[in-house]
């Protein structure tokens, strides 16, 4: 029902996005496109700027402390041009968000059902009977058991997994086109995490929802996402379909992430492959490729010049001078790499 004119074009399109807090350039030139009905995962370590990128789509930063440059298009709207009123309609109405900690999304003094119905009534005119029916339908949609009774629960009366579902229901209340998810399963047990991931997949399929999920867990990303973008130090270093990223990585950082996973270790007692060192200090960003100090392929050129994005196949891009070398090193076998002592 919302905005028919926005049917064509991408669900989310970021171009040249830069976000800075004070002197710290947290997001440093991100170009990203999420097609309608597609699920994209942004993965990276803490401090990679993945969460800030996600939040900038809803402009969730106080204007005084942050500086956003570039262009953000979401659900057919130019987000940076929206005025306060349009922005508040845009949040929830066109694009909504779920968080790691659902207790922060709910007001503890009102029942969950009331918060959902109020959210709907804020966005549209609807009778109180219909709105209750809609809230109930939402609870059924996110598979909350005995939904009628649960609508009257307060947030603290629900268990962690159920709260997460209730938060998804709240996010879907105003029929947004795009759902943003910031580490939605990090705080959950594995048994609950998989249920939430499956739910997100189901919503994408059944409602045609576009999803952008931020996670540090490659496994969670593969479970929900059609495409994966790998972020490092505020830049997207590689983007492609989930299959391309997991099977045919072309950036040394992606390779490092895949190699360092414990399930990749072949024999017990063997050591894990690791990425040496730690992420750069974003306030004193070195010139050239930010990953160069930790990279097994780095040469002088990498430390001086930021590599451009290379299109490896349609939609699969990596920002590295040595994509071919990286790719063949990955294919060569489980332990291809020695690191030159810096």
């Amino acid at each position, binding site marked *: 029902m919302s905005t028919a004119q926005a049917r064509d074009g991408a669900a989310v399109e970021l171009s040249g996005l830069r976000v800075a807090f004070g002197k710290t350039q947290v997001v440093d030139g991100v170009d990203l496109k999420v097609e309608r009905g597609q699920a994209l995962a942004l993965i990276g*370590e*803490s401090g990679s700027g993945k969460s800030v990128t996600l939040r900038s789509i809803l402009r969730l930063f106080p204007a005084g402390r942050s500086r956003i440059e570039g262009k953000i298009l979401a659900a057919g709207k130019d987000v940076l041009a929206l005025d306060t009123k349009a922005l508040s309609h845009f949040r929830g109405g066109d694009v909504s968000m779920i968080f790691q900690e659902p207790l922060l999304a709910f007001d503890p003094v009102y029942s969950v059902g009331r918060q959902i119905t109020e959210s709907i009534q804020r966005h549209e005119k609807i009778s109180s009977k219909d709105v209750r029916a809609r809230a109930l339908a939402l609870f059924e949609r996110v598979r909350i*058991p005995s939904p009628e009774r649960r609508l009257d629960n307060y947030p603290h009366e629900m*268990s*962690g*997994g*159920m709260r997460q579902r209730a938060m998804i229901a709240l996010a879907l209340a105003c029929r947004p086109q795009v759902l943003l998810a910031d580490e939605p399963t990090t705080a959950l*047990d*594995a*048994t*609950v*995490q*998989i*249920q939430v*991931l*499956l739910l997100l*997949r189901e919503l994408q399929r059944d409602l045609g929802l576009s999803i952008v999920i931020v996670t*540090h*867990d*490659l*496994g*969670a990303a*593969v*479970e929900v996402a059609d495409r994966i973008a790998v972020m490092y130090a505020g830049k997207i270093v590689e983007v492609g*379909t*989930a*299959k391309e990223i*997991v*099977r045919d990585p072309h950036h040394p950082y992606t390779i*490092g*992430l895949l190699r*360092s*996973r*414990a*399930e990749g*270790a072949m024999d*017990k*007692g063997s*050591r*894990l*492959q*690791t*990425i*040496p060192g*730690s992420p750069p200090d974003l306030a004193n960003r070195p010139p050239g490729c930010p990953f160069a100090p930790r990279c097994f392929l780095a040469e002088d050129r990498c430390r001086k010049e930021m590599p451009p994005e290379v299109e490896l196949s349609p939609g699969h891009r990596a920002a590295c001078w040595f994509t071919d070398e990286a790719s063949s090193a990955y294919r060569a076998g489980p332990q291809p790499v020695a690191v030159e002592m810096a």
Partner: protein
Amino acid sequence: MSVIPNGLDPFATDRGGPAQPLLSISGLIKHFPVRKGTGPKRVVRAVDGVDFDVLKGETLGIVGESGCGKSTTAKLIMGLIERDSGDMLYDGQAIGERAMPWRSYRRQAQMVFQDSYASLNPRMTVEQSIAFGPKVNGVPGRQAVERARALLARVGLEPKRFAGRYPHEISGGQRQRVNIARALALEPRLVLLDEAVSALDKSVEAQVLNLLLDLKAEFGLTYIFISHDLNVVRFISDRVMVMYLGRVAEIGPSDQVLAAPSHPYTQALLASMPSLDPDNRTQEALLAGDPPNPIDPPSGCRFHPRCTLAEGVCSAVEPSLSPVMPLHRVACLARQPGSGHSAAPSEAIAA
């Protein structure tokens, strides 16, 4: 070479020989009272009758959902909370009795916590934190500091750059290295790692796991490794113990338990690990809903309300931990001959 004066401590060296378990736990119980309203007194059965051994030189992984009692077990083992009942033997000696007071036991058993920041005193330098343990155990200040610096170097932190730093000045991975160094400062034989790598980024986690492997080999340590991440547990553990609602569901060699799980709960846990194969994504969750509350656990087998194999007998009889293979024990009626469960193997085959 030991720096800590050992004269008074008969437990620093091995007593029972390699066959005697380093730690032997039996019948461990801890209930917490729930203070809520009036009515009948209710308790959280956090740990409700747990038996297991930790063998010398092994890594025992403990897995389970939140509320399964794994962290309470850790605190009971370390004596940070008092047990209601149960026996704990360290190398054949009962812990907490006259022959082995807690103080001597703690020289042998140390712990690394999940939250690297909260487990370091924010007003102490890294070096002071590590040297604190040796100092209170009678090592002269200067020697304790030297030891702290040597340990820092050993965990991969250059003493010159890190010894004088404060916890907020270093990264999460570096802090966890400091915590490991602090645990090793007393030259323990047993190190309990309670979700010690869970809060770290994957690439840092791999570095720390490698470090743990190296330290274990170098100092001949025994680990108890608590984690919710089955992949990490599979990588590091020799044996795995799966806990559910305060009880042991399954225990055995990790390549058996995690490759061919016998308990339906272990199977469900494994199935809920995200797959890394985009062509073969998880299609359905084997377990619905949240982990149940350890207040008023179900009767009989505690897992029966969520179990795909549950039958009438499961709600009536509480299964005991019994072997399905040598060293591999499972608490499930469907795996026990003569239990009355229709899927149970016949006694002839089992015998």
